[in-house]
């Protein structure tokens, strides 16, 4: 089984996405033998009111929860986020969040964000954080959104030891405490592999050595990205089959209680 913890539905403001409906994403997943995917709204990245994007994803994934696992995009600086969180969890069955602090103009250390993480943790929801949405070199002339620095993540995981974080679209963990052995940090975060190398610098292999395969999860970033590069990583990764199986699905299944 393959579980992708990094997938999306809907439109993105700055580039046309293919495979961005439930039907077309499922067809792509079938073609690539990906069994389940965690999805959130791509439109909510730039919507002011992210709940509109969550509603679109809730509608789109109706009847597909066996394969599409919806996550909510919540902006803790926007009015009514507590209501949105409750609706997303209780009514839409969303079992996790995606946060975009740089896009939504807040910091992970802000009290509102900490309150949101605490509320999500209270509900046993997973909190995932895309460290970037797209490569900054291709950004629109309208904006300049920086990548999320890893040091800000370090402070967050320390502050919420009972929370569970999945870090998406990141790289360079082995140069940060997050990817170092015996780093003194809680084991409350997992790292998704779509931007990590499996050959040459082999960051995935180094993270397995430092943190254990239990902390790595498979993800593609589809439909922003072709899913194939991440699949190729799994194929060429020098790791034991039990470790690969953890990365492919077991870790995500445990965290998502599938």
């Amino acid at each position, binding site marked *: 089984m393959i579980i992708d913890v990094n997938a999306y539905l809907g439109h993105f403001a700055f580039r046309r996405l293919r495979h961005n409906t439930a039907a077309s994403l499922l067809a792509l997943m079938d*073609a690539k033998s990906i069994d389940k995917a965690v999805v959130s709204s791509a439109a909510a990245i730039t919507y002011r009111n992210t709940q509109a994007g969550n509603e679109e994803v809730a509608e789109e994934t109706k009847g597909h929860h066996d394969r599409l696992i919806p996550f909510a995009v919540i902006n803790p600086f926007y009015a009514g986020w507590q209501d949105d969180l409750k609706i997303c969890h209780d009514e839409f069955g969303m079992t996790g969040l995606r946060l975009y602090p740089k896009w939504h103009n807040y910091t992970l250390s802000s009290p509102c964000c900490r309150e949101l993480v605490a509320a999500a943790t209270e509900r046993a929801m997973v909190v995932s954080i895309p460290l970037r949405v797209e490569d900054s*070199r291709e*950004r629109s002339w309208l904006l*300049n959104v920086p990548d999320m620095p890893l040091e800000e993540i370090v402070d967050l995981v320390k502050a919420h030891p009972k929370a569970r974080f999945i870090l998406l679209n990141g790289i360079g963990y082995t140069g940060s405490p997050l990817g170092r052995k015996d780093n003194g940090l809680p084991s409350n975060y997992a790292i998704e592999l779509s931007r990590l190398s499996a*050959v040459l610098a082999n960051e995935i292999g180094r993270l397995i050595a430092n943190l254990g395969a239990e902390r790595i999860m498979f993800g593609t970033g589809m439909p922003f990205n072709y899913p*194939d*590069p991440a699949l190729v990583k799994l194929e*060429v990764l020098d790791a034991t*089959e039990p470790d690969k199986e953890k990365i492919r699905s077991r870790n995500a299944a445990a965290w998502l209680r599938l």
Partner: protein
Amino acid sequence: MTVLRTSAPVRLSRRTLLKGSAAVALGAMALSSARATASDSARKCKVVDCHAHLSHHSRTAWEADDRKLIDAADKLGIDQLCCSTLTPRWPATLDGFRECNQWTADAMRRFPGRVLGYCYVNPGYSRESLEEIRRHVGDHGFMGIKLYNEYTCTEPVVFPVVELAIGLGVPILHHASHSHYFVEEQPRLTDGGHLAELARRYPEATLICAHISGGGDWEWTIKALRHAPNVMLDTSGSVTDDGSVDMAAAVVGADRLVFGCDSSMTAGVGKIRGADLSVQDKEKILGGNMTRLLQRRKA
């Protein structure tokens, strides 16, 4: 044949991944007969990475790093790597690019048939650059010329290099990027529009626009190069945006795309696997087109 999912530990044998996956890459439409055809066809396909780099020897691990590149190529089924060695700082000095080319020549000897060499020069050293190209391309069998960001490709100082490349019948791989902001660290950065302009000035030249998937707004670059038939587009780069290879093939044609990694190995391979193109087109991109370019070399 390699498949996308395996239940046992896999260490992919050399030259299997891309070729085997070419059939898989037909996607949901693939029928067993189509797979067989693709698989048979794919076995004939030589895979050439048009954009690779060797490690600068100031790095203590340079030899191991070069070995890792070959090992990665083995795992990914890449037959040949067209390599340059770049200086760690730009603009490159005369001594700087000369020693880089010497190291490239050494690597061609260490990995015969696997490493092909680009001769890297800073065109600002006008006479010396031409001598360096004649020595390495003309006498030492380098396959092409690599230009970086010392000058925008439309500056007259670059023209003698292009004219020599035409004379030798070899391609120029030109670093390129288009962002919608000024890139301060690369003030003379070339983009697809510049390359199209150079291509119009020299229609006999063969130019390769580097890393459409690591050079900013790839949609802009592809559109800028639509009407520049003597510019090839290199698919390398760390960006794996869905649709990029597909759009490039739709706009300029698969005959003008050349596969590359630029050290982003799984990204390079995965994008070609993921593109919704025929196996025949993928074969062209993976190696057919580059092989054709290399055959233009004059004696």
